[in-house]
């Protein structure tokens, strides 16, 4: 087989279009994941057993099933049940939100639990109620702890969006596949797809490491 150098260049405009969609879906999806994750993370450390149970169940279901199964379940399964289909882009954002939400819930739980019990006691002993202690004392410290694993989850979710190509969301992977079926230049296209992922993930990792070092120092 011969490599066609021109294909490395020609595929770029396609991939740029795909990259934007990948970024949009990741950013909106993870934003939703933050909301879900904070909610369920705090629920998982609730005093109330029922509330904890709900949170743990959600996390275990998401973590215990493959992402591809979740995608097909929501994109095909649920519409079959309710007789209504959704735009795959909306579904894509929702899936990334639901999926990252479970992992972020674990990050939130771990972050809050990592704060010494004495901090809560000190706050309470001064007369602050549990909500005030949480907000002014525990949460700011827990957030710092959560930054590195959260950044890590962002990178994972970004890569996870590639599976949305299976439901015709025209993100980076899908764009590559489209180009490949037209031109048959599989090597050139997939090589460039990987490069495009790395263009985002390598700087993200470097930024993360930088943040981690700064957090360690303070």
């Amino acid at each position, binding site marked *: 087989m011969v490599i066609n150098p021109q294909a490395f260049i020609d595929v770029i405009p396609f991939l740029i279009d795909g990259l934007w969609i990948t970024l949009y879906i990741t950013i909106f999806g993870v934003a939703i994941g933050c909301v879900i994750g904070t909610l369920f993370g705090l629920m998982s450390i609730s005093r109330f057993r029922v509330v904890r149970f709900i949170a743990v169940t959600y996390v275990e279901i998401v973590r215990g099933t493959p992402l591809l199964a979740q995608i097909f379940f929501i994109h095909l399964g649920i519409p079959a049940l309710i007789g209504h289909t959704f735009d795959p882009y909306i579904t894509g954002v929702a899936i990334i939100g639901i999926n990252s939400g479970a992992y972020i819930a674990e990050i939130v739980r771990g972050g809050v639990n990592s704060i*010494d019990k004495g901090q809560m006691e000190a706050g*309470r*002993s*001064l007369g602050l*109620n549990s909500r005030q202690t949480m907000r002014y004392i525990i949460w700011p*410290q827990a957030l710092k702890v959560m930054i590195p694993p959260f950044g890590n989850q962002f990178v994972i979710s970004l890569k996870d969006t590639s599976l949305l190509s299976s439901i015709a969301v025209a993100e980076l992977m899908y764009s590559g596949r489209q180009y490949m079926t037209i031109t048959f230049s599989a090597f050139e296209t997939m090589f460039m797809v990987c490069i495009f992922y790395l263009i985002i993930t390598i700087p993200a990792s470097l930024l993360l490491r930088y943040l981690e070092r700064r957090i360690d120092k303070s």
Partner: protein
Amino acid sequence: MIKVNELHKSFGDNQVLKGITTEIGAQEVVCVIGPSGSGKSTFLRCLNRLEDITSGEVIIDGTNIADKSVNINRYRQDVGMVFQHFNLFPHKSVLENITLAPKKLGKGQKAELNEKAMQLLDKVGLREKANAYPSSLSGGQKQRVAIARALAMNPKIMLFDEPTSALDPELVGDVLAVMKDLANEGMTMVVVTHEMGFAKEVGDRVFFMDEGLVLEEGTPEEVFTHTKHERTQAFLSKIL
């Protein structure tokens, strides 16, 4: 000021406090001594309900705080607590550590509370550390900030749980000196401690706790010199 009536506390099946009845008067300094695991910390933490009270009464200024309907947050403002491991807020400066609770609880204007915090820092000899962060302080300095933080709420009672146990020996003196000043100003204090010198000099009364009970109580003279119980004697002979 503090009246404790048949105070019981269990953790699951583990009965830790087995019916403590005692009274502590205003301006009194009570030192609590006893072997590890005897329930000293648990007793202290029941006095501000940091531990739920299993049964019995803890009456502070006429209010039984064992009663679940009491607004415990309001009441805790009157009872300061100092912990063995300081528990300063690491993300806040020394000044912010002291002013955080009074500010959030609306105890005064910002400028006024800052001014008050500076006075408290003067009192514990750390004015120049106002803008430092806890991680840059020595253990003794941290504990003095913790005392200032508790005092910022104008408590009527101060609880100390082994405030000097985590300190290097040469730093203990500074903290004890601050506590002594506080006692001389008439603060009501309950101090769990292994510092027998402090108990003798500053304590009005000493409680010896053993297996969840106050086995012996009296003036330092009575407890240390005219010891009644064998167990107290055994404990004292081990640590003196």
